[in-house]
Each structure stands twice: as structure tokens, then as C-alpha cells.
């Protein structure tokens, strides 16, 4: 599972943990987030802007 980071503010979406506040359950792949997903913290970077930062086995 991977994590994806907003290049503007550093918000990190962990596929392992999901984001309970935003309603994304643990183990929700980043690819399954809505197409119109924007960074929950800064709202100025779109889904395709996020950078994959960790690749775990």
C-alpha cells in the first residue's frame, strides 16, 4: 500500500489508514478516491497532482 502527498501543503493520504474524517475507510486505494478529489487541507491541488511517496510490500 502506498501513500500520496499533496505537493502544496504536505497532506498525506495513506491507503492503509484511509482518512476517517473525510470518510475514506482504511485500505481504500488512492485510485478509488473520487475523480474530483481535492486536497482536504489546502483545496488547491487536485488528485492528479498528488505525489506517491511510499511503496510498502
Amino acid at each position: 500500500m502506498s501513500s500520496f502527498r499533496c505537493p502544496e501543503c504536505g497532506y498525506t493520504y495513506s491507503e492503509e489508514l484511509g482518512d476517517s474524517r473525510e470518510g475514506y475507510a482504511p485500505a481504500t486505494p488512492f485510485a478509488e478516491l473520487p475523480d474530483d478529489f481535492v486536497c482536504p487541507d489546502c483545496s488547491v491541488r487536485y488528485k492528479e497532482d498528488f505525489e506517491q511517496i511510499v511503496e510498502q510490500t
Partner: protein
Amino acid sequence: MTVYTATLQNGAEISYVDRKRWLWLLSVTYPLQALLGILFHHLSGQQAWLLLPLALSYILAPTLDWILGEDRNNPPEEVVPQLNEDHYYRYLTYAVVPLHFVALIVAAWWASTQNLNWWAYCGLAIIAGMGSGLGINTGHELGHKKSRLERNLAKIVLAVPAYGHFWIEHNRGHHRDVSTPSDPASSRMGESIYKFALREIPGAFKRACEIEVERLNRKGSAIWSYENEILQSFAITAVLQISLILAFGWQMIVFLMLHNFFAWWQLTSANYVEHYGLLRRILEDGKFERCQPHHSWNSNHIYSNLVLFHLERHSDHHAHPLRRYQSLRHIDDVPQLPSGYFGSYLLAYVPPLWFKIMDKRLLGLSQVAGDLNNVNIDPDRRRSLFARYGQTDLQQTTGGSQP
């Protein structure tokens, strides 16, 4: 004196002193101006003194902006992390939260116990509202941060002007959609502030509710529950304002209606001048380009920035929404308002004057290059504006669409 030091990549040492450090206290005390009017009324017995804050905002502030001028200095980027971690600055934003409650409660008490003339009563309600409108500014600074404390303080202070949905609306809606035709909080060329208010106030509330309902549905949580972050803030509003009515009588209903409306009007005024006519381009993927510094109007005027937690350095704020107020930068070659916000509000309140001054500035921006097709235009004025400037509307000729 606090000195920040850092080492540059070339090994050179730099030091920086924030000359505005103590002047930011003005942002803490400015919302208390209703109390200044009350003090002078108490000392003189003249009810007209209650209106003093109107003069402070609309005569003194533009005059001081004109006299003191602009400040284009930026802290060196190398010391910004230290500046951000200096908790003094955030303590100021914490300190102003209870002061907003104090200002409203004291103004309500004074209005209901002093046998005021109708105009003094209404004037005090409006001035208290203007002070609480600054609470939206305080909530704005706090609500953009990641810490739970700051976010909770934002929700608490937004309860004073009864604008608890702002935190969600602004952060998740306005910042996403800014300077696009669909944003109710971005004003359009040819749209007066009065027409804008009728679109912005209900539109912002609707968008906030949609965003929060979507989040709660994803979580599987009930809309009418404590988890609803809009309801959290409005619950505090209900306790506060019902308590004022119970304590000071039914006349408080009129007082609070005026107060709430003029608090919202402060935000409407700010939103109106911050993005007038500016338009983000549509990219090949059909999405709008990311928000750039040239998608906001700015002012570097010293005084009004000092009483508004640097809100007028708006380009840097929209490009980097989490950046703390003490670190916001002047950026060269971005749209500049003719005055600080308070002077700009006065222009906006007289639409023909606003259009005369701002339309020329708007069309003169490098990203617009005099082409109305690069402007966010009021659809009702679109045909007449293109005709007036003798230009061809590409939306008409190509059937251009918006995402």
C-alpha cells in the same frame, strides 16, 4: 527584540527582525472598536460617539493607508520556518477569539440599557456587526491551519457573526473554485456588490451544506448530528444569541438581525474586491488551471493589513492557503487594488465609480491583455460589455463551455 537567523546556501549568515511584530496587536484590538464608541458615549453623554467606529474604518483607515503607503518587504524564505514556529503570532489569533464575544455582549448590553435613540441603537448594532465581521477574518486565519485547536477556535469565533458554515465553504469551496464563473464568492466584471451579495450569501451557504453533506454521507454519519461541523458552530451561535435575547429582551432580535447582516456584509465586501473579474484558464483536460498569484487582487497598504492579519496579501494566501499571516509575501506583477480594503469597499459601494476604476485596471492586467474573453463576466452584462468594447465573444462564436 526577537532576531531570526539562518544560513544561506552559499554559507552566508542572515538575520531578520520582524518590524511588524508588535504592530500585529492592532489586529487583536481592532474588533473592539464598538467598545471605544461606548466609552466615549459614556464619558460625553453624546450618543453620536457610538458611531465613531464608522469614522475609524471608512475615514481614518483609508487616510492612514494613503499617508503610510505600502510595504513590499518580505521575510527571507530561509527564516520563514522560524517565523511560522514562533507561537507569539498564533497566540494573537487565539487571544482575539474571546474578545469577539466580549465586544458583542457589551454592545448588546449597552444598547438595551441606555435608552438610545433609534439611530444610535441601530448604529451600535451595525458597528457591533462590523466588529463581528472581523471575527470571520479571525476564523479565516485560524481555519486554514491543520491543528485541531486552531480549527476548533475557528468554529467558535465564527459563531459570533452566525457564519459557522464559512470554514467549510471557504476552505473547501472557495479555494477550490476561486476565480471561476461557478464560484459564488468570486465577483464578476459588471456585477455590482449589491447583486453579488444576493448571489454570494445564499450561494456560499448552499455550497457549504453540499460539501458537508457529501462528507457526512461518505462517513455514514447522520446529517443532524454532532459530527456536522456546520451545526457545531451554529449551536454556539444559538446559545449565544438566544441568551442575549433572554437577558436583554425581545428588542435584541432587531439588534442581532442587524448585527448578523452587517457582519456578513463585511465578508461580502472582502470577497467582492478580492477576485473581481479574474478568471482561471481552462486546461486541455477540461479542468481549470491551478490557482496562481495573478488570480487575486492585492493591497500592500500598511495600516489596513495590520488590522486584518495580512488578509490583503491575498495572492500569496490563495497560492499557499496554509501560509501563516506573518509570513505572507508581496508578489511582483500581481493585480493591485487602488487602496487598502476599507477604501476599496467605499469604491465598491458606489458601483459606477468601482466599474470606472476597476474595469480599466482589470483589462490592463497582463493575463487579460485587454481581451474580455479572459475575464469572469456577469452573464447579464456579457453582451453589452462586449458590444461596448467592440470585441468578439468567443463563447458565442465557438459555443465555448465551462467545466
